[in-house]
């Protein structure tokens, strides 16, 4: 069977967009946090926590909407913890990020095992694809682009919205200034701390939304460590994309495509081992970072604790 079959390609590309959704949502959030100067490396842990929360709530209530909200709330909580430790106590951001990842990994595993459940959530209505009338009938492109779950449309629509926010609003400008030199805001008498907290919590909330999608749409069940490095891929995408929205999007689509190809790997009977396909996104990220080395977009304050009031 020819592996360049049309249906196969459509499936791969469609899946790419779906797989990319949690990454995009999280990346937009993490971009905000990093543009404010905070290296939130706990994205992985946040996503996992949110996914687990979504799992728990959907099992308890059967409601997708509630589960999604709960996941976002979980994201906010983790974000608040991160903000308290990094912006508030000025602890090292790398260490805190790592700790949050490990704490999330342990806690979700613990609660999962303690709950004794291992239920298959595919029976519940997951986010069904919402076909856009008319557009989804366009051959090839229609099936790929316009027959996706609602959150996917939301994710892609948020990208230009995020751009507008960063470059055309006052809050966005202040955010960017925060990451470059918070003293500028200080000397204008604009409070820095509340903005740092807001940026961190909002960023984690977005990751929470991504985690909800991961759990409720892309997966059938909760597995420990199901975030599987996606949070790290978000961080890599930001670096590779030089902290710009569109560069980050390009990197994410690349990872998602490789992921999708891997899922179809067995069917495609490609001449490489299955594990190699699984490793592709991670290898690709290393290659991307050797080629695209410019870090001129890196916020000047990134990682440096804010020492003002």
């Amino acid at each position, binding site marked *: 069977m020819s592996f360049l079959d049309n249906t196969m390609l459509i499936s791969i590309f469609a899946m790419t967009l779906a797989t990319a959704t949690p990454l995009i949502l999280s990346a937009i959030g993490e971009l905000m946090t990093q543009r404010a100067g905070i290296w939130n*490396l706990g994205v992985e842990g946040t996503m996992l926590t949110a996914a687990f929360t979504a799992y728990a709530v959907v099992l308890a209530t059967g409601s997708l909407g509630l589960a999604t909200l709960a996941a976002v709330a979980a994201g906010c909580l983790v974000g608040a913890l991160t903000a308290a*430790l990094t912006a508030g*106590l*000025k*602890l090292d951001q*790398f*260490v*805190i990020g*790592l*700790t*949050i990842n*490990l*704490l*999330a*990994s*342990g*806690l979700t*595993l*613990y*609660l999962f*095992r*303690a709950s004794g459940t291992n239920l298959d959530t595919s029976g519940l209505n997951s986010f069904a694809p919402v076909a856009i009338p008319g557009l989804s009938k366009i051959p090839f492109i229609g099936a790929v682009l316009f027959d996706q779950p609602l959150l996917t449309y939301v994710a892609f629509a948020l990208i230009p919205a995020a751009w507008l926010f960063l470059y055309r609003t006052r809050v966005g400008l202040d955010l960017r200034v925060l990451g470059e030199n918070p003293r500028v805001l200080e000397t204008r008498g604009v409070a820095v701390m509340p903005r740092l907290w807001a940026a961190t919590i909002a960023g984690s909330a977005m990751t929470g939304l991504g985690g909800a999608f991961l759990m409720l749409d892309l997966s059938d069940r909760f597995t420990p460590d199901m975030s599987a*490095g996606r949070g*790290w891929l978000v*961080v*890599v995408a930001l*670096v590779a994309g030089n902290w710009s929205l569109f560069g980050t999007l390009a990197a994410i689509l690349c990872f998602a495509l490789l992921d999708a190809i891997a899922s179809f790997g067995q069917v495609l009977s490609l001449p490489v*081992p*299955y*594990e*190699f396909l*699984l*490793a592709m996104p*991670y*290898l690709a*990220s*290393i290659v991307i*970072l*050797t080629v695209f*080395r410019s*870090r001129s977009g890196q916020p000047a304050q990134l990682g440096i604790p804010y020492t003002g009031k």
Partner: protein
Amino acid sequence: MRIVKRTKLAPVWSVALYAAAAVASLGAAAALIAIAGAPVGDSLSALASGAVGSPAAAIDSLVKAAPFILTGFATCIAYRAGFWTVGQEGQVLAGGAAAWQASLWTSGLPPALSIALCILAGMIGGGALAGLAAWLKIRFAMSEIVSTVMLNYVVFYALSWLISGPWMASGDTASYQQTSVLPQDLWLPDIFGIADLHMGVILVAVALVWLYLVLSRAALGYEIRAMGLNATALSQRGVSLSKLIFKIMLISGAVSAVAGFIETFGVNHRLTGDNLSGLGYEGIIVALIGRLTPVGTLLAGLFFGALHNGALFMNVMTGVPTALVETLQGIVLILFLVVGVAGHFRVEWSKQP
């Protein structure tokens, strides 16, 4: 009310704060156990007796602690120099895999020689992986945080492929892959014949002494500490930072690899997809709790090794999931970090806001 920075902290306060953190950790453990629906008192006592309740238990705790004390040491070496690697996880795998491959190649040789070569091979494997991360940083200015995490996944999948392919034990199905068992004469012998106390533990002791001496007295240790505190001044005084990073990572990777070796040759006697997982990350947490000192890492490692061991018994007795230990590690670290910093502040009540 205002939070004001203290200039000096009396030791009494320091001890009190850490004690408070310890108590809070205990409280968190109790809360978690309660959430799981198990009896708190019984669980905690099962935990304690499983950890150190008998000589056999204590030995098991020590053996459990050994690999992540080693990865903790590997973390100390790198983090003291300011090189934030998260690659200990992958280096453990690389070390175990390389040692395993060496065991296949040295099958005809006398066991002592074979084991020695396997250790060497493991160290080369782990060192090379770590060296790769160092090279990526030096040559491409690639953040070591990012490169090592990515490499961890790559190594994981590579090992997965090896185990399900060339190294798969004959007769195994696709559902659970593992290598065949190591030939018995390559199993690490027990120290003084004490059951289950394999010789790998001696390597841990050696590493402890070595690390302590290097950090406090060796020129290399001086350079490591200086680089972590002020790399600019160090490089302007003639020390090549790239060469130093390379050296540090080769050593760190080799130490992590030894952890993989002793687990494989001393405990598991075979490789599976996940019997070495978590050792790297655990070492990082243990080293951080131990404040990046050799003795601190040792103590923290021993403590958590005991907890791991005790948790197995507790699981059997009261059904509390063993993941309690990982959760506690994260909580303890956060509490210790907060306490370490909170001692520098005090609350001042004054008229002027």
